[in-house]
């Protein structure tokens, strides 16, 4: 692009774009979904029963890590791991956290989709939040 072409465009100064990003972050933080998510994290962090259930699952999973990688876990250990996973994933604070996270992700995805359509690039992919 020549300088002439660039001058023809009405460009947004970098500080104005950054302020728009900050305004967007503030608007997102004020949504009921974001507030519910923060509250759910807080509740989860202070729920000793849920924390114990999570710790028990993670501890068992860690102890079986090598066997899990080799797909050599015994049926009894598999069943115990599944039981511990069910116990933590059904804890009320964990269920509430998962729902709050899903609700927040839905509005983040809707906003990012909007941005992606406008700029012609997939926002989430471009920002490197690839899977796995």
């Amino acid at each position, binding site marked *: 692009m020549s300088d002439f072409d*660039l001058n023809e465009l009405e460009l947004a100064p970098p500080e104005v774009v950054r302020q728009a990003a900050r305004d967007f972050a503030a608007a997102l933080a004020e949504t009921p979904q974001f507030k519910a998510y923060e509250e759910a994290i807080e509740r989860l962090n202070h729920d000793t029963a849920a924390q114990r259930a999570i710790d028990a699952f993670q501890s068992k999973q860690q102890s079986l890590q090598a066997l899990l990688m080799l797909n050599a876990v015994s049926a009894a250990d598999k069943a115990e791991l599944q039981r511990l996973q069910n116990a933590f994933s059904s804890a009320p604070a964990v269920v509430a956290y998962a729902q709050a996270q899903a609700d927040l992700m839905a509005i983040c995805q809707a906003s990012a989709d909007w941005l992606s359509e406008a700029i012609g690039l997939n926002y989430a992919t471009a920002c490197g939040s690839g899977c796995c």
Partner: protein
Amino acid sequence: MTHSNLNQLPDLMAATQALAENLLASEPFAVYQQASARFSADPHARGLIERLSQAQADLRRRQMNRGVTQADVDQLRALQSEVQSNDVIVDYVTTQQSAVAYLREINQEISLLIGSDFAALAGRSSC
């Protein structure tokens, strides 16, 4: 959730719209949009990319069948060289990289303020 569902969140909708407009009017994106338009309007450049993509797929298929010849490799290298020396393609790729780098900076700005990676929250896991 679709864009229309953001109707229930007018402040977020307005902030998203404003950010989209400002991003589009930022220098990295303005330059990228122009390079993208030039690429889209250039059948030779688009044809080169299509031929390169096809040649790469053919070579992978032949590699699996152990049927790669020196001529196949030479043809692919010639195409790669042609792509790398095509100004429209090079401009398109480099301006896209700059736009992506800029978008990451903006994402970092948002993420710092909300305390979570916004792009990760907005991603759709395909695992």
